[in-house]
């Protein structure tokens, strides 16, 4: 007599978790946060979120995403959509920081002086890339990160940003060209 095989269910898809959250299942919301929080944090850090604010920006991004999830119709991956919301949240944080004069406006949202420990950890090239990204227009920076850091497809990036695949490709190539000049 053979023993029953343990059932190993596939993890629920993002779409299933979103539907469960819309029915009021808080565990589904928590599962979505646990699944996407780290990639989102990497994207935000790359886009210039100061370390001290990273947790707050991540939280705010999820809050905004869950509150407007009715507008997500599967036009792109949930993660791509989430990251573009993160870009908007980060921009708002930067504006507020500039208004509070915590950071000078011309330094953008990233405190490039940062934590000495973090700087010690970061390679010189990474630090140059981080600084170089801050010199790019926001769209180029986000397209570059979505493509190079997150490995998203151009079609997906275009759908999330409301542009065309060709335009996303152009933004990426402009970003690469500028970054090559900066990070030598």
């Amino acid at each position, binding site marked *: 007599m053979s023993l029953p095989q343990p059932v190993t269910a596939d993890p629920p898809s993002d779409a299933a978790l979103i539907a469960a959250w819309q029915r009021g299942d808080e565990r589904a919301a928590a599962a979505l946060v646990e699944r996407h929080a*780290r990639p989102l944090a990497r994207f935000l850090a790359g886009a210039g979120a100061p370390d001290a604010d990273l947790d707050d920006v991540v939280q705010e991004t999820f809050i905004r995403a869950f509150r407007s999830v009715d507008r997500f119709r599967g036009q792109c991956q949930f993660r791509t959509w989430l990251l573009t919301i993160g870009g908007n949240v980060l921009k708002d944080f930067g504006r507020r920081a500039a208004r509070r004069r915590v950071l000078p406006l011309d330094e953008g949202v990233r405190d490039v002086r940062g934590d000495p420990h973090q700087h010690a950890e970061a390679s010189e090239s990474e630090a140059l890339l981080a600084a170089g990204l801050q010199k790019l227009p926001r769209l180029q920076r986000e397209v*570059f990160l979505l493509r190079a850091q997150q490995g998203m497809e151009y079609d997906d990036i275009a759908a999330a940003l409301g542009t065309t695949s060709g335009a996303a490709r152009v933004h990426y190539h402009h970003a690469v060209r500028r970054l090559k000049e900066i990070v030598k």
Partner: protein
Amino acid sequence: MTEERLNELARKLGARAAERLNVEATAQKVVARLREEPVRRTAWISQTWLRIAAALVVVVGGGLVLRQQLATPGHTPGVSRHTPHLVADDLGDLSTDELRDVLTSLDDIITTDNVAVPDSTTDLRQLDPQQLRAVLRSLEG
């Protein structure tokens, strides 16, 4: 620097910061905030309408003040040069003298019952700038 090398660096970017993130704690905080601050679309709409209404009151009220003053017999254009500030600028931009000018122009058209004049004084000219601003703001509704 090749494109491949740039992509390689980009993949590492933010990795350490992301590793430091306590994902479970973040998930709990997000769920707690969603529970505490449910979407209140109607509340947002009400607030927005309230702001629009308040702005209209200020603009229309300021316009009426200006009109009344211009219609006053003996009014010489240019004498009360500060009054338009009530319509156009923030009260914080006005100096003490300008605030007093505006108040003087309002004396004829308001009833003091609705004005938040501090108990300690009966003369508007004795008020300091902060108190004058408070009085004017109370007039804005």
